[in-house]
């Protein structure tokens, strides 16, 4: 699992656990209800709940919006790899890069939309980006670990989509 995936797993797990506890509490509250309770205060507090939700969303926005993958540049000493997708194959030139130095991938395709997903030897999704016909998309990634990385197509592209694979050699 990638680091991001671990963060998602933990955050989602905690949120679901809280949600389940609240759901059970609501369910239980109806089973032992004595006389009926006036619901009017709940209506009035909905405004407060709105503020709580807004604050939480704003915090999440601030915490994440600076980590968008857009507009990355590789700078000096970069390695350039040109990638062309075609139903159902990848052309990766060169297919060997150095670890520790930024790699600028220039992605395009000759036919349909494809997805460029790069997996480490341990099966961890290192990064991914979409590949469009008639356009070039730039992705920058620095490989820390040497090894043979597998490229899968991560945008459905037709009957042999799942066979559209290639490898990328990262040397130390």
């Amino acid at each position, binding site marked *: 699992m990638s680091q991001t995936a671990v963060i998602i797993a933990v955050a989602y797990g905690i949120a679901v656990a809280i949600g389940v506890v609240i759901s059970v509490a609501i369910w239980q509250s109806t089973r032992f209800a004595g006389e009926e309770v006036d619901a009017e205060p709940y209506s009035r507090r909905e405004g407060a709940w709105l503020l709580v939700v807004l604050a939480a969303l704003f915090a999440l926005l601030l915490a994440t919006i600076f980590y*968008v993958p857009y507009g990355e540049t590789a700078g000096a000493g970069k390695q350039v790899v040109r990638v062309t997708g075609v139903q159902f*194959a990848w052309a990766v030139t060169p297919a060997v890069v150095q670890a520790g130095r930024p790699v600028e991938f220039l992605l395009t395709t000759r*036919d349909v939309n494809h997805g460029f997903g790069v*997996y480490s030897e341990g*099966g961890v999704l290192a990064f991914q980006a*979409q590949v469009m016909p008639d356009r070039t998309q730039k992705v920058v990634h620095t490989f820390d670990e040497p090894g043979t990385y597998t490229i899968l197509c991560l945008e459905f592209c037709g009957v042999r989509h*799942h066979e559209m694979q290639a490898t990328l050699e990262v040397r130390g």
Partner: protein
Amino acid sequence: MSDERAREVARALTLRYVVASTAILAASGLLGVVLRSSQADWGRVGDNFWYAAMTAHGLGTFVGWAGFAVMGLSWWVLAGVGFPLRPFGLAMARLTWWLMVLGVAGVVVTTLLMGFGASWVFLYPLPFFGAGEWGAWATGLFSCSVLLVGLSIVTWCFGIVHTVLGPALHAVSQNVLTRLGVAMGWGYLWPRAFATNPRPVPYAVIPLTVIGLDMIVATLPLAGLLVWQIFESAGWVGSADPLFAKNILWWFGHPVVYLLLFPAVAVYYWLIPRYANRQLVAGNVIAIAWTVAVIANVLVWAHHIYLDYPENSVQSQINTVMQPMTFSLVLPSALSLYSLAFTIYRSAFRWTAASTALFLGLVGWLLAGLSGIVNATIALDVAVHNTLWIVGHFHHMAMLNIGLLIFGAVYALLPELTGKALYSERTALVHVWSTFVLGMTVFGLWLVQGLDGAPRRFSVLPSEYDTLTRVSVPFVVLLAAAQVLFFWNVWQTIRGRAGAAVFDERGLPVPVERGRPSLGTAAFEGAGMLAVVGLLLAAGAAGFVIGRESAEDDGGPAPTAPATTAVEGGDAAAGAEVFASAGCGGCHTYGPAGSSGQVGPSLDTTTLDAQQVEAIVGSGRGAMPAFDGRLDDEEIADVAAYVTEG
């Protein structure tokens, strides 16, 4: 129309929608079982059939079942809150039904029979690159079918908007725009400007108005793209811009999710208070949330294409702006969940199979919402985009939120729609709980696989994911089996097997207490439950063991040996035609063929002999795919002769 007559009309309409959508669920749900068990190598189907079935399953269950069902329930909700259909609305409602049924039928024919397998998003220009599996006819007819579905959504919107603006709105103003504001709940915020007399707009009307307006705006550009595809398949126009087409697709593709959710919210708003025996707990802020919704819903499409940011385009800026826009769409859900939860909290809630389904549907809504926030966040989407996490997310949404709501609404409303008592309350309760528990398991496994990087839309998954795929199949089968309880219950109810419906003082149907069958004694029930749990554990364990074993023999199932029963001496002239038709020149430069492809090595300088070329063409090498499935032995021999002799 008299009140009674109007209710009669809405009743017949809703029943017709519910019956048709339930039939579609039966068919397209079964396809889902085929898809997942094929992935687990438990009845493997051909690749193109798999993708065609995926296309049919997606459109069938999402729009043909869930969308269609809540569209139908909306008519009954409107009748229930005092908004009768008038002649124009009624005509639209009837037209909607026919367009949807014809459209879904067309989708079934073009996918399962004609092999169209470009997935429900038919990401342009994929429909025109069928790789020999489907042609222009299938693309044209598929586009026509989806166009019918789209038109069905638009006519439904016309019917909804016409109905909510009718005299039942009790708006003081006769101005159409003011009346629209009233229908969107603005009277709760500005009582003078959007005055009503004698009563404010019922809450259930608000989400229906919002989606009625949005889906007109959202669907018309898609209709344009579909018409373009129809023209292109007929050869009348050239190709369109792929990035623009992608934006148009998601311009529709996001709001259509809310075509399911917002009418479902209307049903929750209407039914939950009836079971809780109190008014919907709703502060005035709920009107703010719905106003945000009507705008944001059509301005968040790019969160589906966060990972498209080609150079020399403004896509990355659009995507960045749409993260906060998408976050704002959390408001209608967060406030509605608050309202519905506190409507139930410490109320004299009447627990039946129907209300249990509604309650569990709210839990499903929460789960789907939480995973949705992950998808809405660009920095997190990078890790889960186009993985099975997304599949888990929208199944939580479609089956455990919308689906359970539909089941609950059907159990709650069938007695008042048919006048007949629900056949079996107990069966309904078993169905609801097993759907929830099995659904949580099946969809939860997708979330886990997705976080582990498992790609979605793969007919054959990389072998490291086999273990969990196999574990999930028994649960998938049981989930499907549980739905049989629903079909059986509905069928027996409509046949009137439990007699006439009886309603309590709240207007809720009273569950019929039927004599327990001899199997139903407590001891038997306990033993039965233990057996089922044991079976599940055993199946899961078996799947785990099988999966682990297959993961150990490295690389999973052995690739099929290339069919190179070498045909002696291919015909180079025939090979030239094969070279052209198989598209070899797209990747390879080859002088005699006049091709200049740069993806693969040039064939002008090849030193291979014909037999080596046959082997490579047949089984592929490096980036080059295997052609043994697309070319026969003779064709491979011919093309090998062509490139070696030339």
